[in-house]
Every structure is written in structure tokens, then in C-alpha cells.
């Protein structure tokens, strides 16, 4: 399919537009010669577009809340709310996207048949090129490069891609040095009984870290499991994204039966300004890899987490966090061992 698109593109005439490019879904994209205004269809796309060229992002999918806005320059934090476009429920009106004088629509996430057909449909309707990129952490450098090419910001994107690749390489080398892998359970939702099976996007951070996922035998995707099953797995570490759940494990007799709770190794993922661990499932989760790496393998991940966070923010969010902001992110109860 992809090959066919490439061959077909050789025979189509090239007008004032850029040379056609192919996105991750294999669809041919023909952006205008100068891309100035980019609409990101979901939060993972917002993160990438903003990282490459913040001034080209026309808006966020939802307005920034004050606790998120503090991490960005004011002119960016105040960008309008445009809504989501495809995938999990539209909140954006196609007319709003048109009115924002969009040159390019970008979505980052799954690139399977459904998102690809939705993208084609919107592209057909609006005549605005719609590019789709793989949102997995490991695919981020490639997505950065392709997107940078489409947006006409190759140099900026290349710099980010190289940095991201180096980070991933550093992480892999550290993981290779790890000798003992604790059994990890990722508990989602207020009850903590939702989790991700092997290959699930929700636990990509754990898979990059080569962690032993307690729920590996479950199918990929978000699943509900029973207490008995969790007690049977008896994980040594629990990671969660839900503050209510994190607070409840210490007083709930059922959770106290689990090794991780007895050993006080239940940790709450930081979530500002974009989630670190699970959602939104984009490049932002690199910080979650460093965070979880430190918790699971303290020796191999003997790194200064504050410096890592500051560097990521400087490169991707274009503003270095203050010491107080770092305290806000990392000082929340449950984020790091006491």
C-alpha cells in the first residue's frame, strides 16, 4: 500500500505545493509551500507541533487550566480552545478548523484503518492536508522528522529528534545494566482495578523500561481485573495516575494484602503540564520513563530527575520551569519515595 502511494506520487504533477510526503498511515500529504498555521487534532499532536514550532500552533484541543498554563509563555498558554477532531469523539467543528485558516492538520496516535479513513474524509471535506503520525514513544523521533519536513521546520525537528534518540539510547543502556526487575502493576481509575495488558499503549513506559508487568498475560488495551487477581500477582511496585486511588490504598485492607503497599512502594505519576505516564499518549511520556526508571531501578537510573525535567521543558515546552514549579511537579505526595 505504502509503496503504491510512493509510486503513484511519482506520476502526479507537482504544483506550487511542496513535494508530497507520506505520513505514518501511508497516506500521501501535500502541504502548501509555506505552512504557517497548524491545527493539532489531539493532545499528543499538540505536544509535537508545539515542540517543533510553537508559533505555528493555532490552538489547544481544550483551554489550558491555570496549573498547566504556568509552564508555558503567556502567549502560548492563552491560545484558543479548538477542540479535538478525530479518534475519541470530536469536539471540534470542521468549520472552526477552517476559520482558523489552517494550512495543515496533524494527528498523532494510532495510525490504523479507522483514524486513517477519518483523516482522509476530513481532508476531502476541508481540502486541508491531514497528516497522521505514530504516537508511540519509540516512534517519536521519526514522527518529529516527518512532521518537521511537512511544517518546513526541518532543522528544529532534527535537533529534537536527535536529542530524543539520545535519551532513548541512554535509557536502553541503563535498562541493560539492570539485574533485578521488580514486578510492577499499573493501577488506573478510582478503584485501581483497571490496568494495561502486554503491548497496551497505556503501559508503553513500562515496556520501554523492560519492566515486568504483572498484568502481562492480559490482552493489549485497557482491562479490568479483580482484587483476587492482583493479590495473586502480588506486585512489588504499583504505579498509578489516579490520586484518589493512591490515597485509598493505605487504608484499604484489600490493598494492604499486596506486597507493594506493605513495602510503601505505590507511586503517583506526575501529571503536569501534560501527563507523564499514560495519557495523553505522546512524546510527553519520556519524562514518565525517567520517573518510573528511577523508582524501579534506582541504581541504574542514578540521574538528576529535576535536571531531566528542566531540559525536556526547555526543548519541548520552550520554557524552563522554576524551582518552585519543579517542586509542584515532583513534590506532590506519592510522586517520589520519602
Amino acid at each position: 500500500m505504502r509503496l503504491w502511494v510512493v509510486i503513484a506520487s511519482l506520476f502526479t504533477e507537482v504544483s506550487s505545493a511542496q513535494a508530497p510526503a507520506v505520513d505514518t498511515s501511508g497516506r500521501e500529504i501535500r502541504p502548501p509551500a509555506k505552512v504557517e498555521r497548524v491545527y493539532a487534532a489531539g493532545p499528543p499532536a499538540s505536544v509535537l507541533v508545539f515542540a517543533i514550532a510553537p508559533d505555528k500552533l493555532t490552538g489547544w484541543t481544550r483551554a489550558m487550566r491555570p496549573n498547566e498554563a504556568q509552564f508555558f509563555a503567556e502567549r502560548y498558554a492563552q491560545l484558543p480552545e479548538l477542540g479535538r477532531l478525530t479518534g475519541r469523539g470530536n469536539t471540534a467543528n470542521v468549520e472552526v478548523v477552517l476559520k482558523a485558516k489552517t494550512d495543515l492538520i496533524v494527528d498523532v496516535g494510532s495510525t490504523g484503518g479507522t483514524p486513517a479513513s477519518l483523516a482522509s474524509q476530513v481532508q476531502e471535506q476541508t481540502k486541508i492536508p491531514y497528516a497522521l503520525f505514530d504516537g508511540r514513544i519509540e516512534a517519536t523521533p521519526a514522527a518529529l522528522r516527518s512532521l518537521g519536513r511537512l511544517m518546513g521546520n526541518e532543522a528544529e525537528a532534527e535537533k529534537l529528534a536527535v536529542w530524543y534518540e539520545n535519551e532513548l539510547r541512554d535509557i536502553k543502556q541503563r535498562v541493560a545494566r539492570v539485574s533485578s526487575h521488580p514486578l510492577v502493576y499499573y493501577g488506573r481509575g478510582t478503584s485501581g482495578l483497571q490496568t494495561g495488558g502486554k503491548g497496551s499503549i497505556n503501559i508503553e513506559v513500562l515496556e520501554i523500561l523492560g519492566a515486568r508487568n504483572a498484568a502481562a498475560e492480559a490482552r493489549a488495551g485497557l482491562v479490568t481485573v479483580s482484587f483476587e487477581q492482583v493479590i495473586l500477582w502480588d506486585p512489588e511496585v504499583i504505579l498509578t495516575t489516579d490520586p484518589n486511588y493512591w490515597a485509598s490504598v493505605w487504608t484499604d485492607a484489600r490493598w494492604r494484602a499486596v506486597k507493594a503497599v506493605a513495602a510503601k512502594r505505590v507511586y503517583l505519576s506526575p501529571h503536569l503540564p501534560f501527563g507523564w505516564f499514560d495519557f495523553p499518549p505522546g512524546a510527553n511520556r519520556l519524562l514518565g520513563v525517567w520517573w518510573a526508571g528511577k523508582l524501579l531501578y534506582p541504581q541504574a537510573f542514578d540521574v538528576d530527575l529535576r535536571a531531566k525535567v528542566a531540559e525536556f521543558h526547555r526543548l519541548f515546552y520552550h520554557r524552563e520551569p522554576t524551582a518552585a514549579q519543579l517542586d509542584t511537579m515532583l513534590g506532590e505526595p506519592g510522586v517520589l519515595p520519602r
Partner: protein
Amino acid sequence: MNSRALTYVLAAAALLGLTALAFAVGRYPVSLGEIVSLLAAKLTGSTHNLPANVETVVMQVRGPRVLAALVVGASLAAAGTAYQGMFRNPLVSPDILGVSTGAALGAVLGIFLSLGILFIQLFAFAGGLVAVGLVYWIGSRLRGHDPLLALVLTGVVIGTLLGSVIALLKYLADPYNQLPAITYWLLGSLASISPRDLSVAAPLALLGLAPMLLLRWRMNLLALPDDEARALGVDTRKLRTIVVAAATLMTAAAVAVSGIIGWIGLLIPHAARLLVGPDIGRLLPLAMLLGAAFLLAVDTLCRTIATIEVPPGVLTALIGTPFFLWLFALSRRSW
């Protein structure tokens, strides 16, 4: 022993057998001997030397869940029986006056506001009560219509209204985090039942079941037109209010801890009716027994057949439908 009495005895025996089985099976292996010695120790107040996890699994996880399945199943079946009799309509389920939809809205609002599980349950319970209160208040103020028709129609339109508010909240919810949580709640599950949930929901459900059981013979009169019942010396308005309040209380308590579990409230009353006929006095106890046994059987499968939990809504229909059709084909009773 006549065949009707035999039906009750068989249903009760099946329920007891299922309960014992449900205690004995689960993802965490606990032997029958361990359960017996644990329960013996608990009853006599003596100490036992079983692993701590065995006690946690039986007393904190499996036990509350088994009991919750019994209470929720019995409540939904009883409420369905009462409403089907009262509204003289075989298609009526406990949600006809909006209790589940109201509870769903409460829970969805709680999830939307990122509240803890206790508040989500509280919102669900209150939502169920408020929804039915509203329907009853409006329905009883619509004069010049058959009061039952007014009540049903008000229930349907208010239910639709609440449903659209739920849809709005789902639409506005965070798609990665809140939306899956809402979906799971609406699917219904007994997976996260805690001893505390049971200790709050069970008394509330029993509080609703008690008046219904006491008034069950008189509930047949609710099917009569108001003036005919009055001629027999029964204040149908008052009786109806009590029945609706009792059914609402137990359904709201059940739904608040279990989420929406369909099928039972609609079809278990029919199964019971096929066995003992339409008289509510005879029907109600059997419907409760069957409802409790059925949900317990379904939930036991939900938590044992796979590593992951199976939503009960899937199995209630998968198991219930052939069972119901078989019963229907076998029976020659009139409704």
C-alpha cells in the same frame, strides 16, 4: 408437597449451593478446608493460623462480593416484579421511573469532577433517588390522565433528559482518563465491592425489600383501576407511593455499588412468573431468589473465567437469553 412449594425449595437450595460454590472458587486459590476453618474461627472467635492473604481474600474481597451479588440480584428482580405488576406491563424494568439513569448521571458527574469512589457512589445513590422523586412529583401533578400512564410517560421523558446530560458529560470528559472510567461504570461490575460498600448498600436494600415483602399480597390490587381498588378499601395512591419508594431505595442502593446491570430486573420476574404465575404474593419471593442466584452465578463466572474481569452485562444476556427462551417454550401459563 405441591409443585409450587417444591419450586421455592429448589430455588432456595440452588441459591445455597451456588453461594457455597461462589465462596470456594476465584482467581486466588483458597481451599475448601481453609474456608471452613476460617469461618469456624470467625464464628467461634478463636484464632487461626491461615495465611493472612487467605483471610483478606475471603473476608475482604470474595465474601463481600458474593453477598453483594445476592443483594443486588434480589433487589433488581424484586423492583422489576413490583413495577411490572403495578404498571400492568411486561416490558417494564426497574429503570422505568429513571432510577438507574439518575444514578448513572450522579456517578458520571462524580467521575467528571474527579471525585473519589465514595463520593461517586454517594452521587449515584442520591442521583437515583432525586430522579425518581422528580418523576413522581411531576407525574402526580399531571391531572386528567390515568395516573399510571402519567407516571410512565414522565419517567420516559425525564429518563431521556438525564440520558442526554450523561451524553454531554461523556462528550466533555477527558477522553484518555475519564471517558474510559465512565464507560466502565456504565457497563456495571461488582469487581471493586468493598466490605464498606456492602455494609452501607445491604441495609438500604433490605429497608426497601422489607415493606415490599410485607405488602406483597396487597400489591396485586395496584394493577386494578383506582376506583375498583378503592371499592375494595385500599388506598392505591398511598400503596403505590410506598412501593415506588421501596423499589427506588433498593435499586438506587444496588446500582450505586454495582453500576448498571441490565436484564435481571426485566427478565427474572418473567422467569418467576412462568414458574408460579402472576400473583405477586407468590411471585415476589421467588423472583428475589432467582435474581440473587442468577446474578451470583453470572458474577462468579465474571471473576473466574479469565485473567481479566468480564462485564456482567455481557454474561447476563448470554446465559439468560437461552435459559429464558427455554423456560418460555416449556411453560403454558398465562401472564
